[in-house]
């Protein structure tokens, strides 16, 4: 398992690295998606085009393309 995109529903992971362009990286960080943060995948559309995750107490929706930029490891 490498990126958030590879995760399935109800899987819990820890963020290792953000491989996103600066603006998007800052956006992710301001949502609490940063190194060492714990993420849980709540739901995704059938083709994983959109994914709903839980980080801390917040639910965030993001696209598969963005999820691909988030490097994670399984807890």
């Amino acid at each position, binding site marked *: 398992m490498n990126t958030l995109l590879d995760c399935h529903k109800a899987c819990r992971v820890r963020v290792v690295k*953000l491989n*996103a362009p*600066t*603006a*998007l*990286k*800052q*956006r*992710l*960080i*301001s*949502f*609490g998606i*940063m*190194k060492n943060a714990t993420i849980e995948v*709540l*739901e*995704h*559309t*059938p*083709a994983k*085009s*959109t994914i*709903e995750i839980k980080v*801390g*107490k*917040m*639910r*965030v*929706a*993001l*696209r598969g*393309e*963005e999820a691909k930029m988030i490097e994670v490891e399984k807890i």
Partner: protein
Amino acid sequence: MNQEEDVKSCPVIANHIKVALVGQPNVGKSMLINSVSNAHLHVGNFSGVTVDKKEVLFDYDNYHFTVVDLPGTYAFTDYTIEERVTHDYLCAEQYDIIINVVDSTNLEKNLQLTAELLTMSKKVIIALNMTDEAEKEGIEIDAEYMSELIGVPCIKVSAVAKTGIDELIKAVLKKHTSSKNKPKLVFSEPVEEEIARLVWYLDKHKYKANNSYRNIAINLLKNNKKTYEKLHKNPIWTELQPILIEASKHIELHHDSDDIKEAFAEEYASFNRGIVTEVVKQKNNQAKKTLTEKIDSILIHPVFGIPIFLFFMWSLFQLTFEIGAIPMEYIDSFFGWFGDVLGSTIQNDDMRSLVVDGIIGGVGAVVLFVPNIVILFIGIALLESTGYMSRVAFLLDGFFHKFGLHGQSFIPLVTGFGCSIPAYMSARILKNDRDRLLTLFIIGFMSCGARLPVYVLFAGAFFSADMAGNVLFIIYISGAIMGLIAAKVLKLTAFKGVDEPFVMEMPKYRLPTLKLIWHTVLGETMMYLKKAGTFIAGAAMLIWFLSNYPHNLQLQTEYAQKIEQTQDIAEQAKLKNELAEHSLEQSYLGRIGKFSEPVFEPLGLDWKMSIALQAGIAAKEVVVSTLGVLYSLGADVDENSSSLADAIRANIPFASAVSFIVVIMIYLPCFAASIVFTREAGHIKYFFYLFFFTSIAAYIMAFIAYNLTKMLV
């Protein structure tokens, strides 16, 4: 006023306090202002309700308060336009104190912004909002201990339950009169070391600044552009630069990252984690699924999610028509009766016609649709305030993305079903200019509330009552589909480029209070009625004048003789109608209509309909009032049927009606919306693009629809 207060932030009037209300999106800032004062700011449950700063004034205890409601921002970035508004305001404008509103149920995330505010060397008060909700979830916050730890007052409030509001204002007053105290935001050792080094350097050279040296040092380390620009011009820069490079290296090494901003975010996060562990106690176990998660497992289900959404929309339009139709009859007969009663008191023929046919006919035709409008607005208010809107954005993003739109485009688009003006403004939540422009161009395809009367009128005229709701739904959906196709066309031609990332918060579901829905719907409805009473009434009078003058005396005497000669009552009525028809045709309006008829003829529209469409550029409500005036004056309306729907059924072929509706669906929203569109798009040229784009699209689509319907029916 405090004597030590430096001149820069001192307000002109002594007992005037200017408060900047800052917080992350959807923490209830606007709601808090509504609770503090008697304002009725728009409140919703998704991020990005407030897109522009709004000022609210109120008095308390001999003080004049100005509260500035700033758009929500997750952090001090300039990611979207709304965030830029907030950032610029906080850095450049004059204000006395910041109230940082935070969501008590999610303190750690909210403190991320708080930490950045604390480095600003401004007076800050933290309002721990949604205390009641937090208590229900078993979250306990020790506000006193928190105040002590951070070094700024933390007050528990609830904007919904209106608790703690007095304490908050008192804390603002106390803070305002006290001297500045230093917030206790502590970084990790390496960062503190570097800050100390920079502060020592600035102090050694007695650098003159309004901000504290600590503040400048932090800004320098965070690569703050404005601070750099300022120091760049100073001679100490040559010496400062190498120190700064060393410092950055040191911090980046410590955080194992090559991004200083990321390093600082981590610093803030660990500080916040420390605070939260100290002051927050969570009673029940978190492992249990929250209610929001349970609802989400149904509403954003991979398979059932979209059908459920479509069902909701269909129900809304069914209700709009079915329930809306009940009081319509009474309103219609009221205006009929009112016109008759008032008409009988007026002696002068022209005056009576102006009042009864012009004003009452025109305004009545618009007021008739208030029940439909109210139901539609209730639906939109529910969508906005429950939190469902963001779910739909989630569901539709994949689909929207195929058409070059963004999932978050859904929010301005759905707002567009209510009114295009707030829809144009809410497009600001989109960061990328291209995506925003594309969305702006498409908003007009979402039929606004003002177009609803035209649809209800025609659906009611040509379909039975149980079908009319479905027809309404089809009109709205096909408008939206045409919008998507138009988006694809524009994306492939005018707005080529990279897509904007989609990262969006999904708010908790909330049950909106009745009061909230009431204020939202009441505000929108009053606006509609006000427009009916002023603008629409004026337009109706103008249309009446243009359709009655010039008088053709020759025509009148000619028909008067004919009517006298015949004894047959039916024949007399027929002649009267003929006279009215001829008079209308030779009026100013008739001449304009006849002049433009060749343009509209291929669409199957007669001159009356083309006039109504042209008048509709001013506002869509005018379409109905114009039809009302035109058809209440003459035409083949038989004695038994007095309503406009009957007149339309009798006078307009079905294919022409379809073509008419298609034009209404696509062409320019209205005059006021066009102005807002131009402002939001940023250049007048976009208005002309929009005008030509919508006009040409409307013409082509109406032409196709007209000929297809003629072939099929």
